C-alpha cells in the first residue's frame, strides 16, 4: 500500500540560535519527536509525531521551541474540512474506529457564554466578601421535604440519621470520576489529597480504590460501573458515598476498555483482575436493563452501607434526561450526576464524543425544572459535570439549579494537561493519562495537590466575589435562583428551556 502523506497536526519550530543542545527535549518526549542527529550533531524533530502537548516547550531552558498549528491547509471547503479528510485517510489506512480523549471539541453553542449574571445596584447593597462572611458550604444527598413536627421525632438522633447521609462540601466543586488506570496513581493521589485538604470530595471512577489512597477514602465517592472493577464491601464501606455510573458525557451508551498492557500489577490488584488482561466495561450494566433494576441495585448498595452513605447515579445528558432523572429520584437515589456533552474521557470514539448527548447547561435547566414540577426536587441533589472552565461557569450552573459540580478536565489542566486529546495513547508526557513508570514520575503529587488547592481557592474567591456582587451571602440563595440570570443572543425556545429571561427584561 502506498505510504500515506502523514500530514502532521503541528509543526515544531526550533530556533537553532537558541538551542544549546542540552537534549532535554530529546530525553523527555514520550512520542520520540525530538532526536539527536548524529550526522549534523544538531537536535532535530519529526513533526508528524507531535501531539501538541507542549511538554518540551515548557521544559526547554532557552525557549528554543515553539509548537505551532500546521498551516498547511487543504482547499478551503466549509463541508469537507481538513479534519474530516484526514480522518477518512486514516480510516482508509487502518480500517478502525478513530479514538480520541478529553471532551467534545466541536463548536456547538456554548450556553455559558450566552448567560449573564446580575449584580446589586442601589435597591439592595452588594456585599464585600473581604469584610462579610460569604458562604459556599453545600450539602449533597437526600434531604427531607419538610420538617413536620408530627412526622419527625425531635430527638436529636433522628436528625443525625438524616444528616449522616449527607456529604458536606466547603466548596460546591468536586473532582470528577477519573479512575486509576485512566490516570496515573500520582494524579489520583494529587486529586484525593486536594479534595481532603479543601473539604470536598473526589471520585474513584471505575478503577477501584488503591491501597495508597485509603487515607483519602473518607473523602472518596466510589463508583460502581458496568465492569464492577474493584468493587467489594470494603470498597463501599471505606467510601464517603457511592455512585452508580450508567453513562458519561463523553460517550453516552458506550462502555470502556482499558487495554491489557496498561493493567500493571498495581492496577490488577486495585481492579481485582489478572495482570495484563483487558479491563472491559460493558456498554450497559448487565443487571440494569430498566429503572426497577436500578432501584434494586441502589437498595442492594444501601443495604451494604447500612443506609449511612448517599448513593448516587451518574448519567450522561441525553435528550430524555429530565424524565430519566425523575425516574432516578423515584428509584431511591440520593444524588444524581449529570454529565454533559463536553464531559471528558480517557478514550472514546471521536464520532460518539462529538455527536452524542446535550450540553450540561440545558440538562441542568430541564432536570431541575422537571423535578420541581413533580415536587421532588428537595429529595435529591443534582451534581453537574462536563466542561466547567471557570468559576463563572460553575456559578451559572448552580444558578440554573445544580447543587454542586464535578470538575475533571480543569483539574487535569491544573496538573499540567494541555488538552492534546491523546489520553488514549497512554503516552501522556505530563504523567497524567499514562501508566508508563517513565512518565508517571513526572507528576509529583505534592506539587499537584498544591496546584489543585490553589485552583479551588481561586475559584471559590471568584465565586464569593460574584455572589457578593449580587448581594447574596450564601450559595443556597443562588441555587436555582434563575432570576439572577439573563440570556444574551438566545432564541425564545432556548430561553424557555433554560428558564431565564433575556437581557434587558427586568425582574
Amino acid at each position, binding site marked *: 500500500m502506498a505510504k500515506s502523506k502523514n500530514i502532521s497536526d503541528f509543526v515544531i519550530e526550533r530556533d537553532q540560535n537558541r538551542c544549546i543542545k542540552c537534549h532535554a527535549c530529546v530525553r523527555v518526549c514520550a512520542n520520540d519527536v525530538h532526536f539527536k542527529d548524529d550526522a549534523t550533531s544538531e537536535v532535530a524533530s519529526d513533526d508528524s509525531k507531535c501531539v501538541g502537548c507542549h511538554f518540551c516547550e515548557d521544559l526547554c531552558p532557552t525557549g528554543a521551541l515553539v509548537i505551532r498549528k500546521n498551516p498547511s491547509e487543504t482547499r478551503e471547503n466549509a463541508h469537507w474540512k481538513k479534519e474530516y479528510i484526514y480522518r477518512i485517510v486514516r480510516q482508509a489506512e487502518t480500517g478502525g474506529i478513530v479514538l480520541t480523549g478529553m471532551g467534545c471539541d466541536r463548536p456547538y453553542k456554548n450556553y455559558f457564554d450566552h448567560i449573564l449574571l446580575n449584580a446589586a445596584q442601589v435597591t439592595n447593597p452588594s456585599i464585600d466578601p473581604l469584610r462579610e462572611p460569604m458562604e459556599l458550604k453545600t450539602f449533597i444527598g437526600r*434531604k427531607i421535604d419538610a420538617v413536620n413536627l*408530627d412526622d419527625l421525632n425531635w430527638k436529636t438522633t433522628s436528625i443525625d440519621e438524616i444528616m449522616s447521609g449527607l456529604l458536606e462540601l466547603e466548596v460546591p466543586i468536586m473532582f470528577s470520576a477519573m479512575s486509576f488506570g485512566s490516570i496515573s496513581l500520582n494524579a489520583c493521589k494529587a486529586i484525593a489529597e486536594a479534595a481532603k485538604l479543601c473539604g470536598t470530595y473526589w471520585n474513584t471512577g471505575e478503577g477501584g480504590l488503591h491501597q495508597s489512597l485509603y487515607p483519602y477514602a473518607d473523602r472518596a465517592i466510589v463508583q460502581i460501573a458496568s465492569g464492577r472493577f474493584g468493587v467489594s464491601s470494603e470498597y463501599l464501606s471505606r467510601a464517603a458515598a457511592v455512585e452508580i455510573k450508567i453513562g458519561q458525557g463523553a460517550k453516552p451508551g458506550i462502555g470502556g476498555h482499558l487495554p491489557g498492557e496498561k493493567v500493571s500489577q498495581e492496577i490488577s490488584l486495585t481492579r481485582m483482575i489478572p495482570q495484563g488482561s483487558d479491563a472491559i466495561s460493558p456498554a450497559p450494566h448487565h443487571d440494569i436493563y430498566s429503572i426497577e433494576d436500578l432501584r434494586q441495585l441502589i437498595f442492594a448498595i444501601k443495604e451494604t452501607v447500612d443506609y449511612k452513605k448517599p448513593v448516587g447515579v451518574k448519567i450522561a445528558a441525553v435528550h430524555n434526561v429530565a424524565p430519566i432523572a425523575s425516574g432516578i429520584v423515584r428509584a431511591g437515589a440520593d444524588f444524581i450526576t449529570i454529565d454533559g456533552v463536553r464531559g471528558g474521557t480517557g478514550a472514546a470514539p471521536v464520532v460518539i464524543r462529538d455527536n452524542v448527548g446535550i450540553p450540561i447547561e440545558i440538562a441542568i435547566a430541564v432536570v431541575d425544572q422537571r423535578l420541581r414540577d413533580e415536587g421532588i426536587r*428537595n429529595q435529591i441533589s443534582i451534581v453537574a459535570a462536563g466542561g466547567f472552565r471557570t468559576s463563572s461557569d460553575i456559578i451559572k450552573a448552580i444558578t440554573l439549579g445544580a447543587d454542586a459540580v464535578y470538575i475533571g478536565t480543569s483539574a487535569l489542566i491544573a496538573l499540567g494537561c494541555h488538552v492534546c486529546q491523546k489520553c488514549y495513547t497512554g503516552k501522556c508526557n505530563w504523567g497524567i493519562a499514562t501508566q508508563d513508570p517513565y512518565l508517571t514520575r513526572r507528576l509529583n503529587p505534592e506539587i499537584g495537590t498544591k496546584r489543585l488547592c490553589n485552583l479551588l481557592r481561586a475559584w471559590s474567591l471568584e465565586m464569593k466575589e460574584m455572589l457578593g456582587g449580587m*448581594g*447574596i451571602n450564601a450559595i*443556597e440563595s443562588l441555587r436555582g435562583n434563575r*432570576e439572577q440570570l439573563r440570556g444574551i443572543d438566545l432564541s425564545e425556545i432556548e430561553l424557555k428551556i433554560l428558564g431565564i429571561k433575556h437581557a434587558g427584561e427586568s*425582574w
Partner: protein
Amino acid sequence: MEYEQLKLIEKSVKIPSGCGVAGIVNKNANRFSGEMIVSSICMMKDRGNGLGAGYAGYGIYPEFSDKWCLHVMYDKTGEKEKVEEFLEARFNIVEQEPIPVRKVKSLSFIPVLHRYFLDIKNKFSDNLTSEEDFILETVMKINRNFDGACVFSSGKNMGIFKGVGHPDEIAEFYNIHNYKGYTWIAHNRFPTNTVGWWGGAHPFGILDWACVHNGEISSYGINRRYLENAGYYCTFYTDTEVITYLFDLLCRRHKLNFEMCSYVLASPFWEEIERETDVKKKKLMKFLRIIYASAMLNGPFAIIVANSSVLIGMNDRLKLRPLVAASKDDFVFVASEESAIRKICPHPERVWMPEAGKPIIVHLQENKNYGEIKKYK
C-alpha cells in the same frame, strides 16, 4: 402610562421598593384605635413616595370573629358578579358590604372595594385537610383566574387596607381611626417604578398573616420556585408575598415555632452555628439550614409579620435595613425609625435595635390558639 399598563407591569415584573414599616402590638390583646399606627407611619413620610401605603389590623371585626373575611378589590366591570358566583359555590356568605371609604381628592385609580364574611359550605368541610388550605386555594384561584379581582385580605377577625397614596391619605380614605385592633402593622412604599394598581400596595396578607417589608430579597427567584413546589403560586411578583407564604408554609403547615422559623429565613452563618455551644440547638440550626436551604431569605430586609397571636420583627443576616423596637407597659413597638415610635410613645421603657437575623417575637397573652380569638379585655 395607562392604568392597565401599570397593572400589567406590577403583575408581571418585580418592582424594587424602599419602604418604611411600623408595627404596634398590645401583649394583652387590648384593642386600641388605628389612629396610633397612622400617626406612627406618617412620621416616616419620606420613606415612601406616595405610591403605596397600607395597614393591617387584628381584632377589628369582633362581631364576625369566627368568620373568614375576604377583602376584595375589583377594577373591571362584571368581575364582581363572577367572583361572587364563585364564592357562593364554596361559602355561605354571612355578610357582605362595600368597605366603607371616604373621598380623598388626591387618590386615583380607586378600585371597587368589597368585603365578605364567610363560612365554608358543609359539603367542602368533610374532605378538607384544613380550613386554612381551602381558603388558601380559594384565594389563589381568584387571584390567578380573575384578572379584574384581587383578594387582598383573607383572615379571621383581621383586615388589610391598602392603596396607592401616602399613608395619611390611605388612612383617611379607609377611616383607619374608626377601627379598633390589638395589633397593627403599617407600610409606606417607595417603589422605583410608577405604580397605579392598588393590589400592589402592602401589607400583603394570606389567611391571617399580614406582612410588611422593607428591602429586596435577592433570593426571590429560588424562594418563589420553592414555594411553587409547595403549592403556593406567587401572583404579585413582590418579595412580601414570598415572605408571607414562607411564614404560612413554615409556621402553619410545617408547624415550626417562630424561633425555628427565624433560623430558616435568616439563617445563622455556619461560623455562628459552629460556635453554638448547646449541642442540641446546634444540630437543629444546621439541620434546618440544610433542609430549608431554598427558603432562606437573602438580601437586605426588615420585616414585620403578624398573625392573630404573634407579631414578629426581623432583620436580614447582616442587618442591612433599619429596624428599631421599643416597649412600654404592655405595648411593643417596632418601626424602621425610632422617630416613628417616639411620636406615639415619647418615653418608652426600653428601646433597642434587634440584632441581624435575630427576631423580636411578641406573643399575645391568652391568645395562643392559632386563629381563635375569643376573649378581649
